[in-house]
């Protein structure tokens, strides 16, 4: 079953007089439980595609169906709800909220979906255990290593049990060992049936993913399928 389906997705920006086609005619389909990497040089439209897939931005042309629902023309309130419920973000620089402790950070997406406090607290604890941070739940992000922070971010991305996990260079800020550990965690999530879409420069990720979309000049240049 297709979780992500785009039809002729395009995004234009008006830069003064000039119109920049950051993305044009992108039609991709990603199935349930797939592990996909999006690769390409800077300015190839990877980030634009990621922002569209993450419902942080809306396409100028084309359609985007997420879990069968057209999310390409929604108002702010609905779009925010889609982000909160169906998408789990993992950022390059972790993007944890500095003044909140681990548990509170994991709870953030649940707050916005109206999960009762006791329930969200228990779930956050459980997720922290799941990513191997059960003993440090009251620490602040600054007290953790980069790899540990990224684990918190992964736990947070899983909080509302989203349809897809979107990663933007999840290992970009990490040393190779921590990076490998994070990739192992992501592999484990994939084995549990999660759908993963990662934007990366990292060849290691490219090799772990089932399919790699190579982008160039705002288009999907070629699709590489790894034989796992």
């Amino acid at each position, binding site marked *: 079953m297709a979780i992500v389906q785009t039809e002729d997705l395009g995004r234009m920006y008006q830069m003064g007089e000039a119109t920049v086609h950051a993305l044009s005619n992108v039609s991709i389909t990603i199935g349930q439980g797939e592990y996909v990497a999006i690769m390409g040089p800077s300015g190839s439209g990877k980030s634009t595609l990621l*922002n569209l897939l*993450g419902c*942080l*931005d809306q396409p100028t042309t084309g359609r985007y169906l997420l879990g069968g629902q057209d999310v390409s023309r929604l108002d*702010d*309130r609905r779009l*925010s*709800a889609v*982000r*909160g*419920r169906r998408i789990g*973000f993992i*950022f390059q620089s972790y*993007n*944890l*909220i*500095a*003044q909140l402790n681990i548990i509170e950070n994991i709870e*953030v*997406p649940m*707050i*916005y*979906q*109206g999960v*009762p*406090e006791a329930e969200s607290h228990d779930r956050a604890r459980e997720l922290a255990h799941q990513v191997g941070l059960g003993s440090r739940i009251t620490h602040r992000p600054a007290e953790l290593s980069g790899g540990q922070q990224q684990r918190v971010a992964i736990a*947070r991305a899983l909080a*509302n049990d989203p349809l897809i996990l979107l990663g933007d260079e999840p290992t970009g800020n990490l040393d190779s060992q921590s990076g490998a550990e994070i990739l192992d965690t992501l592999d484990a999530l994939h084995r549990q049936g999660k759908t993963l879409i990662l934007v990366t420069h990292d060849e290691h990720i490219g090799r772990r993913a089932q399919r790699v979309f190579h982008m160039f000049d705002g288009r999907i240049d070629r699709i590489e399928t790894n034989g796992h």
Partner: protein
Amino acid sequence: MLLRLRRTVKLGAKSLWLHRLRSTLTALGIVFGVASVIAMLAIGEGASREAREQIARLGARNIILRTIKPADERTATANTDSVQAYGLTYADAQRIRHTIPDVVEVVPQRLMTFQTWYRNRAATVQLVGTVPWHTDVHPVSLTRGRFLTPVDMDYQQKVAIIDKPLAEHLFAVDDPIGTDIKVSDKYYRVVGLATAVGRAATAGPAGPGAGDARGSEGGTIAGNVYIPLTAFRKSFGEVTVQYAGGARLAEKVELQEITVKVASTDVVLPTRDILDTLLGRFHEKKDFQVVVPLELLREAARTKRIFNIVLGSIAAISLLVGGMGIMNIMLATVSERTREIGIRRALGATRRDIVFQFLSETLLLTLTGGLFGIVVGLVLPLIVSHVGQMPTVTTGSSIVLAFGISAAVGITFGMYPAWQAATMDPIESLRRE
């Protein structure tokens, strides 16, 4: 929704707590703004209420006529031997009673300041020569004994009613009733005790009595002594003599004051005009003055309104300044937390969630500031009352008003920063370091 709101408020409180010093300093603006609104209104209300009470004591249905010394006469008669006569007369009192229909009561009064003795204790008193129906017009009530009677008037009885402050001053242990007190060189028997009257109700030393208050031998007035008007006339006459630089200054004044009570407050002002015309015909020199307490009351109300507007604007400005301080800090906070806003948006926060988050912080600041402001605003008037000997009245409505204003300030000045936070592009916000 309610659940989300509750957690948002909790979040706001937490983030304020994280920046305790900043939050405290920001809220101080509101604390002082609210405190000043309440304190200023309390001081203003206290002052005006005191004025109104003083005026009300004069009686809203009363018109007070007072003898004043015509200014230009003093030098003209300085070296003559003749007696200078001026002021209100018994004939005036008669005329007023018989010619003006709306007049209910006329109380003619003779006022002078004298030394009074009981045994070896002395006091300066205001001697009031008056009529039995004095108590119908003036707010004097009898606590013991009796007031003046028509018989006292007819037989010029040397009886006196003294008020409470004087009784306490002259009679330490003895019962005043039935004893004789010496007023100047005459003896009067005390037959009644009356309540004290504020200075505004009697003529007072600065009033019309001052013109011939020859008896004043220094010292503050300890109280009032009421005696029959007829007895006053017999005992002390109407001519007072002063020796100034070898010249002999004699003055003849029949009455210091005539209080006219009319049927209702509606006819106070027309009657005032009639009185002016009536008396003006018999007094070529302007030797009397008309005081209308009702007019004073209205004037006091006007003054109060102006006073309130001035105080209100000062307080409003201070609240405005406090509010701008808050807006400033909130704008700084928003720009400092741009990234956090981006993260929250990516994790499912709607624009409204972000507005509530920042608005709740501003509201928490202003409302706690407002609460502390109320406390300070309640204490401040007490200190003013205690130190400045000024009456203050804190009304419930001023508290509600001040708190309401602080909430309004919070919403007004919190709205813009919150709106700015909410409308930021999440992608841009996430990119910000």
